[in-house]
């Protein structure tokens, strides 16, 4: 294997059941239910998944949910806005800790 990630492995996701079928079944049933139309549409959920995929930086998920959002009729502007939401939360999460840093700084300063 030349790299840790292989695009072909995405298609084998279901194979995780090979080592532990019961938990895998529960997971995939749950997964399927999560993404159905509900209080949020399947389309909205797919865009959330795309944003989360960028947050957890999972190449399989980015591959899968780029395609899924396209299939659900989203265009490039919508996909990129979802990525910016991920980036804003990630950036914000760093910056908001700046308050903690400032508190500590002030505690230690004369």
């Amino acid at each position: 294997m030349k790299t840790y990630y292989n695009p072909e492995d995405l298609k084998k996701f279901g194979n995780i059941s090979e080592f532990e079928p019961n938990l895998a079944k529960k997971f995939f049933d749950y997964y399927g239910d999560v993404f159905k139309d509900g209080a949020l549409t399947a389309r909205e959920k797919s865009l959330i998944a795309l944003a989360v995929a960028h947050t957890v930086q999972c190449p399989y998920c980015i591959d899968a949910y780029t395609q899924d959002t396209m299939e659900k009729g989203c265009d490039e502007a919508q996909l990129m806005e979802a990525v910016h939401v991920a980036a804003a939360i990630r950036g914000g999460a760093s910056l908001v800790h700046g308050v903690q840093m400032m508190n500590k700084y002030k505690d230690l300063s004369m």
Partner: protein
Amino acid sequence: MSLKSLHAQNHSLSLSKEQLHVLEKTSYVSFSKKLNESGLFPLTVKPLEIFQINVGKMCNQVCKHCHVDAGPDRKEIMTREIMLQCLSAIEKSGAHTVDLTGGAPEMNPDFRWFVEEISKLGKKIIVRCNLTIIVANKKYNDLPEFFKQHKIEVVSSLPYFTSAKTDSQRGEGVFEKSIQALKMLNDVGYGKQDSGLILDLVYNPAGAFLPGDQSGLEREFKNKLKTNFDIEFNNLFTITNLPVSRFLEYLERSSNFESYMEKLVNAFNPSAAANVMCRNTISVGWDGYLYDCDFNQMLELKVASPINHVNNFDTSMLEKRAVITGQHCYGCTAGSGSSCGGTVI
């Protein structure tokens, strides 16, 4: 992408033989074997309901995905003589619907005469209108009124509700003209509630991916077209792009062919296969030859019947035939299926 058809470019994929060669060289299980596993082979036909007539390959657009390889440079159009043969066949066929397609069917000089004659037979008429033809020339501006007069069901392609995605597939400026044409159709009552004038839109993916859930996309299209342009329509049909002609050329050129075929094969759905439109439809080419569907027509796969021309049309003989299938048929059986009327399950 050239503004010329593959035919005008002398592209090898303008030849049906070459397209079939590309399709058959895939390593995926053959479509007939897949049908057999589902107990559907040979694919028999049901009583004929829809007479789909391709009145010519001439079109004012050169869409990147067009399976007809239509365009302004295509001169193959149906003559009035063949239309007369169609009328006689329609009358004795028992079909309740006549579905007119092209190219841009309205560009055939006998289009209006043909519609009037079909109208006299009391059949439901569908016209697959590309929208921009309505505003392409003054002589077409009254098409909405003409459609209304004959209570034609208008089915129009609009791949997206923004210009960037629509124009990338259908050509520069197509979205703006399509919106203009949709407004003209709305103005005479098309797509309006209780008008009885049906305006359906067709969505097909602008790329190497499958269409998503039809109802979800319809909701999105209705919301965006109403909010942004005050446009109304009845139903959205999602159609899968079949690996034929220009879409096949795009798949090859973009190195997406194998992965697209894999998607189609993996999404094979026996329920969709049982409901494919070729089972209750006959497709007539511009020259009068008969096919199981418009895709088989473009691949020059004539019906497997001694009756293969509209001139000697015989419903009972044709209903004994089995549908000619190939690897391209996976496009109609993926997921919820695909037909000229959208999903099939």
